[in-house]
């Protein structure tokens, strides 16, 4: 239990997926103008990463590993993730329209979010068990959510400030992310 908690905290805070591993930067920088949309994107990523870690881990342990086809993992994982996102979209649409309203817009954007494939590959690389893979996935996704919501909060405030014209928009967002990354560096000795 303690080990799982350690992995979750490590994935969420110490090795934050966006701020220290640079995965999933597109949505992090693109969909962080408002806290509300950022939270929506964050929950969608949490949803998909959790299911994707479970599925890819199952496929790896029970199909690829016994068949000695582990070298196909990149191609298999990306296809599984793409199919999964489509499937999740259909299921959510059918079962829970309110949830679809909230997450639907973000789901298609996630297929090529490299954080999802990144988590699946890390799980395999570190030889995590099924449970550990899912915990690592949830931790990573929570870290993503935390980072994107904080950034959106800061960006909402920055809107009202007087920023030099050449720094407006992306440069100031990147600088903000850099400062956040410095803050997250402070967690390095936590584990």
């Amino acid at each position, binding site marked *: 239990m303690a080990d799982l908690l350690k992995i979750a905290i490590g994935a969420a805070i110490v090795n934050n997926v966006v701020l220290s591993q*640079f995965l999933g*930067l597109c949505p992090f*920088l693109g969909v962080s103008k408002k806290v509300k*949309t950022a939270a929506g994107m964050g929950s969608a990523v949490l949803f998909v990463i959790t299911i994707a870690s479970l599925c890819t881990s199952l496929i790896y342990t029970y199909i690829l590993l016994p068949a000695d086809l582990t070298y196909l993992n990149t191609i298999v994982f990306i296809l599984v993730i793409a199919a999964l996102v489509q499937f999740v979209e259909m299921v959510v649409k059918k079962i829970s329209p309110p949830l679809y309203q909230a997450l639907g817009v973000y789901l298609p954007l996630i297929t090529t979010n490299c954080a999802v494939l990144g988590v699946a590959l890390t799980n395999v690389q570190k030889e995590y068990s099924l449970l550990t893979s899912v915990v690592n996935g949830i931790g990573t996704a929570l870290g993503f959510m935390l980072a994107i919501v904080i950034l959106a909060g800061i960006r909402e405030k920055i809107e009202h400030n007087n920023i030099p014209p050449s720094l*407006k928009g992306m440069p100031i*967002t990147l600088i903000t992310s*850099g400062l956040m990354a410095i803050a997250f*560096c402070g967690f390095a000795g936590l584990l």
Partner: protein
Amino acid sequence: MNKIAERLYNGIIKENPTLVMMLGMCPTLAVTTSCMNGLGMGLTTTVVLALSNTIISLLRKIIPDKVRVPAFIVIVASFVTLVQFMLEAYLPSLNDALGIYIPLIVVNCIILGRAEAYAYKNPVIPSLFDGIGMGLGFTIALGLLGALREIIGSGEFFGIELFSEPVRVIGLAPGAFFVVAALVAIQNKIKLRQGKKPEEKGCLSCGESGHNCGSCALGCKKEDE
């Protein structure tokens, strides 16, 4: 011949994927801790980009429109795996340095973006050179960023010590954000001086406008259907 030169110029300068189009930010920030790593990542991506563009262009009449995205992904992922084998066999040190970012080339916006925007609609030879041009543009940008971070962040360049009190933070994760921020700010400054309005492009604007960013655009397009 003209077409080839035009494609190369387009990829390296006019529509440079990193510096102008702002695509593929993940590897750009992650592996540019040194010039060598940046160049290695750039060249690896160039190989994948050139090969996948060629094959997609060859198969463009066979691949049905409805399943083109999964087909692109399969083709790109195969080439990435292939290149990974080659690196493991002949350049293990580069493979170790780039680690997980090699398989992640699959989800690089630039590759799916070029497949969708160019290779799927154009003949083989221009597509090949479009891939090479874009790849070289990416390589140059990553090499430049890597060199900047290596010099400022560790006071060295290819192992030669330049000064003794480097600004360490530039070499660490936060520094990647700062260096890219500075490059974008300089571009904006130049644009402002020329009287143009700086616009947000590529990945950095996806989710809102969705155009230009290859993979994001694929997502946005699906949304429209």
